[in-house]
């Protein structure tokens, strides 16, 4: 009987270890992607390198591309950081709370503050993303 119990414990321990390892790798990989998109976001949103590359003539397609890069970099940063924080909190044994999400939300949104269009679209995208995560969590 004790032998059987010992074997059962080892199996669950191994499974827990595997889950922890997987969660940690996911956390780290998401964090690295988050940092990558944060750097892209700084370059395009804060330093505005795209405008430096543009000539004085305003070309609509290039303007759209500029805003698209800004928005996508910010949203990708939020997405991967949210996954990373979620996994981190999961490893600690407690779920990510509203304060964490709100803080990350503000950090992401205010990166795009220099461009009105990028700010507006990012706000819309962030709300959609938060709603999506909230709904799949409830389901």
């Amino acid at each position: 009987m004790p032998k059987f119990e010992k074997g059962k414990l080892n199996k669950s321990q191994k499974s827990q270890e595997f889950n922890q390892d997987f969660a940690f790798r996911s956390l780290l990989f998401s964090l690295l992607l988050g940092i990558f998109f944060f750097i892209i976001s700084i370059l395009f949103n804060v330093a505005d390198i795209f405008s430096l590359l543009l000539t004085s003539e305003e070309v609509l397609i290039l303007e759209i591309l500029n805003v698209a890069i800004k928005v996508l970099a910010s949203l990708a940063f939020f997405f991967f950081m949210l996954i990373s924080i979620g996994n981190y909190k999961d490893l600690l044994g407690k779920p990510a709370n509203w304060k964490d999400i709100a803080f990350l939300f503000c950090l992401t949104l205010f990166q795009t503050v220099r461009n009105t269009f990028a700010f507006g679209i990012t706000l819309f995208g962030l709300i959609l993303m938060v709603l999506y995560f909230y709904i799949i969590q409830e389901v």
Partner: protein
Amino acid sequence: MKRSNLKLVALLLIFQFLIMPNSFLIYTKASTLEINPEFGGAPQIDGDLSDEVWDDAFKTTVNLTDLPTNLWVMQTDTHLYIGLSFNLHVDVEKSFLGIFISNSTSQSISNLKDAKIIQNTNLSNGDYEFLDYYINNNVFTLDSESNGNGAEKNKTDDWYYEFSIPLYCNDPEDVNLKYDHSYGFNITWGYPDVYPGDNIASAFVVINIQTPTPAAIDPIALSLFIIAIIISCITGAYLSLYLFKITILKKKIKRVIR
């Protein structure tokens, strides 16, 4: 009157007649129009002066001899733009409108060094070409490299011209127009395609090239830029703290597994 006195009076009169025309010219010469161009956007050089960009131009009227002409002058950091329009019935095939640029404010023909010319090649088809000439003692030589641009538009008897002339052009065949310097511009209409031309109407103006004023800093844009920098710094600090927490967590996990 004595014969010698008579000779003296005659000499004095001859001397007076020799001096008179020059002094007459000096005192009756019309004062040269000086233009301080306004700063604006770069117009498209297509002969269309209805472009909104021209709203910012310095606008005046000059007489090309006796032809009333609207003259618009505008400047950017890199170019001087000149717009001209007049009403004239032209029935000669090869008319031209040229801007002859002096390297000083002098009207003297020896100071004219550069010519930007729009030459009509076929009046009926509305064909024209922009030509850049170098002037040396009234001898016109086509530039090896053309700088600037010009265009013409004609609606019945209304003629519209647009010129762009680069500033700080280091080509030795062009006048190097610099900020805070004044240059004479001889605007000449004539025909046929020989310069400066025998049948011409012209006007001389002085254009003072302006130094661009640095663009005023928008306080809202500056505030937003500062906010973006602060947020980026906070995010960077947050990511560093988070990375530090993760390394601690990794150590904890390893300890628990052991």
